[in-house]
């Protein structure tokens, strides 16, 4: 079965194409790749053979500039190409960034095409939610798209960028690159698991039995560790941002894919699988696959996916970010840059800042005078006071491309309510800047977790 199985990953929009580019670099056997975008130059930059440009005369082969209406027109004009892209796939992995133009429109259309096919492919969708700071309008469009695609996916994974941003305290660009890395690893794990290149394989029927229906609540988490440390791998798995929105998750059924070096011991593997199943409180079916890779050495990677039996949702909804009238596609453009470049740039920037500070201090301290400590002006300008009577900003009409009838409005209302679940994660994980340090325990309380969260103090923004 595995040999004949067609696994196809399609990246829609700039963010999706960027993930496809990174997947192409991995050269995974048995994984077909395609990218769909309105921006021809971005597609060329992605360097994927099977690239479908839908911009054409609608956008002059440029991006949609975040305009979902434009993206919809372009997608409808190239509908046959989209059908062609989906046709023949047994497993269809759709990757897109929501909130912008192309990704928010093309990915749901792909899932719609898949759901209407005679031989329905197994649909896995990965979507990046926009950052809260990108504004409510993008957020609403993203949630509409997410709900639409979730109903038509066997396994739907949404990566709320806010969680990554909050966890790692990284700049916007870095948040996107982290998100990309998680999705790339997860797609690779699925591909390896199904392509029968492993020691213990999960076959396609097993996958379909675990995720028999579309529209179910599902989860996927990815974890890794060095030194063959089972404990670290489990911790990393539990802290996976893909899992971050749920608390005390109980899995209905579970699939675990493990990739390890050839020296990974059998007892450790057993411990890992048992512990993972135990932690997730699986009640139903459990399957696992193991791929050994000489290059891994003492590194292990675990990918867990399944249906959700029950999960605690956060106690209270987070406040929606304020409305912002001016939009920019800069965030999407940045998403298309590779993670490596981003990390490198950030390192260089940090070094430059450090050097800059040193040289400034040197200049002032060279004559034996002490430089004053960093003052308020060194951390940037003071925030501007906001006038309380300022008129509310005009809301730009949101869009999701399949009409806006009563159903859509209900869907939008439900989406608003559901979006709150992406804002929280388990309290012990909310350590932000201190994430990579040991817990700061005092009286059995981790002091690195914000006090207002621990004490339940409500912050109204």
């Amino acid at each position, binding site marked *: 079965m595995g040999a004949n199985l067609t696994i196809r990953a399609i990246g829609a929009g700039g963010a999706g194409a960027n993930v496809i580019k990174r997947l192409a670099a991995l050269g995974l056997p048995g994984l077909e790749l395609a990218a769909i975008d309105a921006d021809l130059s971005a597609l060329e930059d992605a360097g994927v053979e099977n690239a479908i440009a839908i911009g054409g005369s609608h956008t002059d082969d440029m991006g949609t500039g975040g305009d979902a209406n434009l993206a919809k027109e372009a997608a409808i004009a190239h509908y046959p190409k989209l059908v062609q892209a989906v046709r023949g796939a047994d497993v269809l992995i759709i990757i897109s960034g929501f909130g912008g133009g192309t990704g928010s429109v093309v990915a749901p259309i792909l899932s719609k095409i898949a759901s209407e096919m005679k031989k329905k492919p197994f649909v896995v969708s990965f979507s990046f939610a926009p950052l809260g700071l990108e504004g409510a309008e993008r957020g609403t469009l993203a949630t509409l798209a997410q709900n639409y695609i979730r109903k038509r996916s066997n396994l739907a994974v949404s990566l709320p960028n806010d969680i990554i941003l909050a966890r790692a305290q990284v700049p916007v660009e870095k948040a996107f690159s982290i998100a990309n890395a998680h999705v790339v690893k997860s797609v690779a794990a699925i591909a390896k698991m199904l392509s029968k290149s492993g020691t213990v394989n999960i076959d396609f029927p097993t996958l379909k039995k675990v995720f028999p229906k579309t529209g179910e609540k599902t989860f996927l988490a990815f974890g890794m560790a060095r030194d063959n440390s089972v404990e670290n791998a489990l911790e990393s798995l539990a802290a996976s941002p893909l899992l971050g929105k749920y608390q005390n998750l109980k899995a209905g059924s579970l699939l675990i894919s493990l990739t390890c070096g050839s020296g990974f011991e059998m007892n450790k593997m057993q411990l890992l699988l048992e512990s993972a199943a135990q932690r997730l409180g699986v009640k139903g079916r459990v399957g696992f696959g193991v791929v050994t890779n000489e290059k891994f050495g003492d590194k292990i990677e675990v990918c867990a996916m399944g249906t959700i039996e029950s999960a605690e949702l956060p106690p209270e909804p987070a406040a929606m970010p304020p409305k912002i009238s001016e939009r920019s596609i800069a965030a999407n453009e940045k998403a298309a840059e590779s993670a490596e470049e981003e990390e490198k740039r950030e390192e260089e920037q940090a070094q430059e800042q450090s050097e800059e500070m040193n040289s400034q201090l040197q200049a002032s301290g060279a004559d034996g005078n002490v430089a004053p400590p960093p003052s308020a002006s060194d951390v940037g300008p003071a925030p501007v006071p906001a006038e309380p009577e300022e008129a509310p900003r005009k809301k730009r009409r949101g869009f999701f491309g399949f009409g806006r009838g009563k159903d859509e409005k209900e869907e939008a209302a439900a989406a608003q309510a559901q979006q709150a679940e992406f804002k929280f994660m388990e309290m012990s994980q909310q350590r932000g800047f201190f994430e990579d340090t040991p817990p700061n325990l005092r009286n059995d309380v981790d002091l690195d977790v914000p006090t*207002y969260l621990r004490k339940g103090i409500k912050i109204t923004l």
Partner: protein
Amino acid sequence: MSDSKTITALEIGTGKMQVFIGEVVDDKLLNFIGSGQAATEGVKKADIVDIRRAASQAQAAIVMAERSASAQIKSVCLGISGTHIKGFRNVGSANVSGADGVVRREDVERAKEDARTKSLAEGRSYIHRICCGYYVDDKFCTNPLGLSGRRVDAEYWMMHGDNDRIASAIHAVESFGIEVEHLVFSGIASALAVTSPQQKIDGVLCVDIGCGTSDYAYYRHGHIVQAGVIPVGGDHITNDLSFGIRLTRKNSERVKIHCGKANLSEDERGMQFWSLGDKQIGDKKIPLDAVNRIIRARLEELFLLLREDIQEYLTEDGIKEVVLTGGTSNLDGICELAAAVLERPCGKGRFDSSIGEKLRYQEYATALGLLEYARIEGAKSSRKKSGWLGKTFGQLFNI
């Protein structure tokens, strides 16, 4: 003929690496001759997490200070803090040996030795073993010599830390060929800089609220009675803000510095400000009240944890006043909040009038205190040298 020598203080803080160079004349006069500073890297919660980066930044600060003072640094007085530092009280006893019942130096030494020799768990080393005072037949005194009694007790506050963390701090400095002459708990150093001898006699609690941790030292009768670390600092406030108002760390720091207040007036409660000010993507209105609630929650907790630690000294005869220092003590309203929680008058650190204007910043308290510590230890060492033997290795970890 006057005798002068150069001393150096190095503070590996969570926020900055600070080097001060001073010249000591006749073991008394301390002249400030140069400084160096570098942004800290590889340090979180006052613990070195990346020794390579920390060492490189420390070296940058040292080199800058050397240029500034036109002097070569051979050894430093290094300030240490971190969540690993703990303390406990230990009392050593000795019977008065003389037939006349008068306490002699040998009796005191035996009592001190008894207190100082308590062994620690594996992997821990002493940073300070501080004599807090003596008891002759259970009656407190600062100098038992010549008093009459049957038993003399020496009370010690023993501060210890994790071997690996201490080694990391020392290695970060010694890796570029500079000797660590004294290793000093930062809280003690800060107290040296911002409290007067009279305050130390009356009973003062000095709290250095830095970036990574808050280090405190309680003085009474001119001696340290207790010192310790509350593992919460300004970075925690920034982190709380970035969660609570959903901003990047850099912007949260900016909001903290410009708008952070521990107390709000009624007028300020309804105020709002733009988070970025450019009214572009990501800019949003933030109520000052939200910022205040987050900061206040964290600081209240910090002072409550401190109160837990020093509860037994919050008596009429104990702590008379609280002095706040360190970068975070610049936050508006923090003294009022500390005074309310600790129920003691509270003010910011006051520097001695001999300290120059350009050095009178709360952020410099630790480095200035380290210089003073090095001067005092140097004077003690000179007195010993005037005997026949110089300093001993043991001085590294003892007062």
